[in-house]
């Protein structure tokens, strides 16, 4: 038409607040670093091996699926790397390399990509990967067996296993402060409650995860554990012990808060978090497994679409037959 400069045309709005998925995922990964550093400093180089292998495998799995499915390469959004990181954080440092590879591939392929990739997965991919290898290779995933030949200067029995076998009496051997700063047996990134708490608060303040889910998760654990403890103090541990052991802190701040698999409305978020907490303690106290966090979150993921229907009425909505 003429020699004018070409203008960009688009629909409103023409402003954006600058947030993006990759920034979100990088921030979550950064928030996991304090707990991760503590884990690596406790368990040493084998722990670093697990973490790097798991991140790498998750990204390769994503890339492979992208290529096979002829989709746009999506490893640059960081979600595969984050899933890999979180699986690594759940695993014991002594786990064999092939188990890490299987876990990462299962997480990305069965957990996420078969459903259509990011945003379409009904269950948290990290937890799918972890749960499948945990059930399939019990021996390798048992922390007491895994750390049989280790002596890291603190009581090496897995706290939740000790609790299950010996009742509350076993908890006397653990110092709560030691548990909080990470001197316990467990997953690489799950042992240091302090680091996870710092990371979680950072994420909440920055608005990357929702406080409703994290807080109600912890409250759910506290209340349920408290009730069990009152009913039978000999058999069931006090709430703080439950909060500081196993994957609770990791679950509350990094796993349950996963965007796609958690609700978005206020009341559903509270229900979701509380449900995770309650089921976790139920599994720990009455179930077969030592730690119920993984299964509790997976179960609550399933009812996520249902609870998210509890939402405020849109303004101006006309309700028929009401």
């Amino acid at each position, binding site marked *: *038409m003429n020699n*004018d*400069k*070409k*203008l*960009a*045309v*688009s*629909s*409103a*709005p*023409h*402003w*954006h*607040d*600058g*947030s*993006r*998925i990759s920034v*979100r995922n990088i921030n979550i990964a950064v928030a996991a670093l304090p707990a991760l550093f503590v884990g690596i400093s406790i368990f040493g180089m084998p722990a670093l091996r697990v973490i790097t292998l798991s991140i790498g495998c998750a990204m390769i799995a994503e890339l492979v699926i992208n290529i096979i499915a002829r989709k746009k390469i999506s490893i640059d*959004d960081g979600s595969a790397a984050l899933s890999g990181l979180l699986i690594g954080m759940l695993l014991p440092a002594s786990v064999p390399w092939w188990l890490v590879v299987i876990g990462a591939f299962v997480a990305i392929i069965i957990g996420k990509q078969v459903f*259509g*990739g*990011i*945003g*379409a997965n009904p269950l948290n991919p990290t937890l799918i990967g972890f749960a499948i290898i945990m059930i399939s290779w019990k021996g390798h995933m048992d922390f007491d067996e895994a750390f049989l030949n280790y002596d890291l200067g603190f009581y090496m029995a897995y706290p939740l296993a000790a609790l299950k076998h010996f009742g509350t009496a076993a908890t006397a051997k653990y110092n709560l402060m030691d548990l909080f700063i990470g001197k316990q047996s467990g997953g690489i990134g799950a042992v240091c409650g302090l680091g996870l708490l710092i990371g979680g608060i950072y994420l*909440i*303040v*920055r*608005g*990357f995860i*929702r*406080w409703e889910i994290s807080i109600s998760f912890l409250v759910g654990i506290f209340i349920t554990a408290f009730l069990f403890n009152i009913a039978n103090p000999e058999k069931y541990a006090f709430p703080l012990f439950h909060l500081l052991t196993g994957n609770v802190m990791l679950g509350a701040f990094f796993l349950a808060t996963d*965007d*796609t698999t*958690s*609700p*978005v*409305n206020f009341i559903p978020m509270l229900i979701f978090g509380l449900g995770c907490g309650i089921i976790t303690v139920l599994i720990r106290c009455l179930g077969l497994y030592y730690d119920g966090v993984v299964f509790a979150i997976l179960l609550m993921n399933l009812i996520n679409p249902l609870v998210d229907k509890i*939402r*405020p*009425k*849109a*303004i*101006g*909505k*006309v309700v028929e037959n009401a």
Partner: protein
Amino acid sequence: MIKKPFFGLKKPELKYCLESFPFEDIPASREAILFLKKLNGKSEEKLLKVGDNVKTGQKIKAFPDSPEYVISPVTGKISSIFPYTDALGQAYEGIKIESDRNDDWDDQFTGEATLETAIDFLEFAPGKFSFRKFSDVTKKVDTIIINGMDVDLGITVNQEIVRTNSSRIKEGIDFLKKITGVSNFIIAVPENLSKEANRTGATVKTVSATFPDALPEMIIKNTLGKVVPAGQKPEDIGVAVISAESTAAVGEAFATGKVPVIKALSVVGKNGKVINVKARIGTPIGDILSKYNVAPEENDRIILGGPMMGTATYSKDLPIEPNTEAITVQSESDSAQVSDYPCISCGECVRICPVRIPVNFLCRFAEFGFYEDAERYDLNSCIECGLCAYVCTARRPLLQYIKLAKHELELIKLSEAVNE
């Protein structure tokens, strides 16, 4: 572009510009371009031809059986007639008038204050307020809200008119009372203009300076406590919202006997600098931009309206229309770039939506063409403020999906009506 604050737990707040920018006059251009709406299925017989002489303020109709008309803002000769289609596919007859630089006023408009005159001559006045809604006997309007706020961010037109021209608004209210019979007038202004608004004689209500509280639906909700039901218009609950500029235009038209042809608008440059100008309707955008040395580069955007609700246009040759509130020029680095990423259900849109729509579900349906399902998820409650797409982590064009769904549903309903 306002970025997300570092501490992002709180919802981001976008504030309206409340500063005062005096109006500067833009001299009349050599040409004026007008767009006359074409109605589908109407005859092609035209009342216009190239070479016709028109006078300032003259009513121009192109088709004998269509009620649509435009008002010529200049005196001169029609130099070309061309087809034009807007972003939503609506067809228009473009009329280019070459001005001879003298204002020879047309005398068809008598200035007699009746509703018929307003419908006949003032529908193309600045603000493009439609007076036809008052003639619908089934929907009795009992309250008129004068919006002294500007709907979108960065625009200060209506505020400036309330600040400097409250006497015209008062005249406008008097004439509106006379022609519509409505006696309940409310003027909605930001806190700092309540003194000026008081002079208009209408009941003064203040609105907050946070976007989107100046949208008609939000003003009705916050000042009257009434809610416009989904899919309906304010008139359906007996309320009409008219801008301060339109009110002043009504006052001017009936007081002076001339149809106003000067439009007030904000020009927002790339550095965010605001200039308020008064230009004739039909003035090409390029003429105004070149006066203030605002030169858009390759891939910049020229937005008619503000950054949240305006439409980015493709050419500097397009004109100022009666409802153009602002020209916002944006550099590429400041503009939102959308992506086709899937929704990750982070919930930012749901939490920021002023009318509490489940945007995450709605836009999934809209994206894949399930428009009826989208309607079940409160599509029609949407007031199109654009906040959802502003905060979207995946940078999805959410408002575009919503507008698409609304448009497609309208087409479906139209074709159903034809088939019956």
